[in-house]
Each structure stands twice: as C-alpha cells, then as structure tokens.
C-alpha cells in the first residue's frame, strides 16, 4: 500500500477546518471509506473530490449526514439515468 496515495483524516480536519466527528459520521454511513494504517486513519486521494462535495453540501447548504446519504443515493440514480439517456439517444440515431 502506497501511503502517498492517502491523506490522513487528521490532515483533512486541519486543512478543511472540519471536525473529526464529521469524517467519522461520513465513514459510519458509508459515504466515505476510511482506512486504518498503523493506528492512523486515512482516506484515499481518489475519494477526495467526493469528500469535498460532502463538505460543501454539509457546511454550505447545511445538509445533515442523513440528507447527504439520500442525496448520494439520488445522485447515483441521476447518473445512471443520464447514462441510460445517452445510450438511448445514441440508439435513437439508428432510426433517424
């Protein structure tokens, strides 16, 4: 495991000025995957944009973690529907 690909939750709290409980609650609800390496918690760099999105929604729009869960679920549905829509549009070209 390459540690350079991970950011410690401690660093995240410091840089983003968020409480550790916020990261903990994101992890508990399955919104962000937190891994433990040598008694230190980390999140993978690839998940940073997801974390940033959650932070924005929570702090800027004052949406609680339960709301974030619902949003995440609905956004996944939106993404799937957009993909399906794109595929169907491409298919429709066959008949035009």
């Amino acid at each position, binding site marked *: 495991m390459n540690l350079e690909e991970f950011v410690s939750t401690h660093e995240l709290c410091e840089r983003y000025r968020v409480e550790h409980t916020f990261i903990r609650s994101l992890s508990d609800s399955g919104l962000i995957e937190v891994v433990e390496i040598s008694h230190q918690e980390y999140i993978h760099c690839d998940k940073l944009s997801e974390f*940033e999105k959650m932070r924005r929604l929570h702090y800027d729009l004052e949406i609680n973690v339960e709301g974030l869960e619902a949003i995440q679920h609905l956004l996944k549905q939106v993404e799937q529907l957009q993909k399906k829509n794109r595929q169907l549009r491409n298919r429709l070209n*066959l008949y035009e």
Partner: protein
Amino acid sequence: MEFIDYYKILELDRSATQADVKKSYRKLARKYHPDLNPNDKDAQARFQQINEAHEVLSDPEKRKKYDQYGKDWKHAEQFENAQRQQGYQGGGYQGGFGGFGGGTQGSYSGSFDDDTFSDFFEQMFGGGRGRGGDSSRQAHFKGQDFNAELHVDLRDVYTSQKQTLTVNGKNIRLTIPAGVEHGQTIKIKGHGGPGIQGGPKGDLYITFNIINNTPFKREKENLYKTEEIDLYTALLGGEITAETFNGLVKLTVKPETQTGTKIKLKGKGFPKYKKEGQFGDLYITYKVTMPTNLSAKEKELFRELQKLRS
C-alpha cells in the same frame, strides 16, 4: 454589457431585508447547487448568477452602491467625480469602482467554476471579489477539476489515438481509447488545476462529441448498414461486394432474399471500449431495388412470369 437585476435573480423585491436575502439565497442555492445538478450547465450558470447576486445584495455597501446607481451604473463614475468636486463626503466607501475589497458572508464554495462573475459585476465592483465568511473553509486541498468537450470523427475513434490537447494554455498529450462513445466522459487524472498547499492536482474530464459522416450507424460496439441489391441477385442469389468499416468484403446473397433481410458479419463492427482486439458485429440489412425504365421485351417477360405465378 447589460444591467443585471440582482433582485430578480434572487426573486426578491427592493425592500427585502438581509434576512430575506439570506433566506432566498439559501433556498435557490439548494436548488441550483452544481453538486446537486451534475452535468447541468444551465443550473451551474444559474448558480453563478445567484452567487453573484448574493455577493452584492448581502453586502450593505455593495447593495447601497447597486441601489444608488441601478440602471445608470455606467455613469456611476461620472456621478462620483461630480460629487467629489462638489465636496460630497458621504457614501461610506472610498475609491470609486473597484474599491470594494471587503468580504461578504457565506458565499458557497465549490470545485466548480464559481469564481466567474459577470462583466457587469467586474465593472461595477472591480475584480477583487471578496470571498468572506469562514475563509478557512475555502482552503481547497485538491485542485479544480476541468471540463472540456472534444469533437471527433467516428473514424478517428476506430483506433486508439494519441492527441495533444490545449487546455487552459497547457498542452496535454493523451490517448483516446478506441471505441469511445458519443456523449461519454473520460477522466484524465491530474490534469486539472494545481493543488493548494501541496495537494494533488484536479482532474480533466473530457466529453466526446462524435460526428458520424459515414454510411454506418453505430450502437455501442455494433454497426448497422443498409446494402442495396438488385432484383435479380435477390431472386437468383449471387455475390456482392460490401463496404465494412475497415475495408471491402465479398458476400454471398442467398436466392430469394427478401428486402429487410438482415445478416451479421461477426467481428466487423466497432472496437469494444478498452477491450483491445475485441470488436462488435456489423449488421447488414438488404434493400432490394426494383428495375426501372423497363423495355418492351422486359415487360413481356415479366408478364409471362406473372402468368406462371397466377
């Protein structure tokens, strides 16, 4: 450059209190926030307008200036000069246009391009946008993600291609994988904006707009084409030469082939995305063409054939 009605954008009237501004902003921001409206450019544009309107109306000094000059904002500087000459000392701000640097409260952050304010705003309040509130929360770790649209010909995505793109003045060499679909977005990791305080760079998202000028229709990795055959080949069978995406092939047409008959040429379709060496199929639909301008002899023979059938 047109006057922008910030009250209209926030769905407020001019007597709105600061609490009303905040309430309306929060309501509209929740509706149009780009995180909640992925791939919706209209929502993003609306969100930028809302942010800009909030930037002005939530700041008492900016709002005062905006209210004072309104549609005459273009002449504001002239008014101010005239007032200064008359010894006017009021106004509560100094330096005319561009003099505002103070922060407003609670503008929403984002990795999206929300720092783009209108020319109207820049002209009236200067480029120094005050992003206030809890400024520590604006400390982005990861760089900004960039979005770009790439127009390519269908023939160009039949094989993997190396291309150099210029994004924000930087040349980026990338390999476009064969078989990419129209409307598909791919992520080029680390080619977005620079990270802040040593953080990783953002990513570049490229959406493909594939232009099809070929006689083939495409659905994912399968191709479709209509091939015309003459009546006699259709009735008696024979050989034709058909075009595939990568060359010509000889096809045997069975006797008594009907119009609309579909045949499959396995592996003659489009490459499968990120599955090297694997291809979809080509479906050919036969369209039987009828002879025209029949001679007297041909007509006679066809009548004879007709009699044989009746």
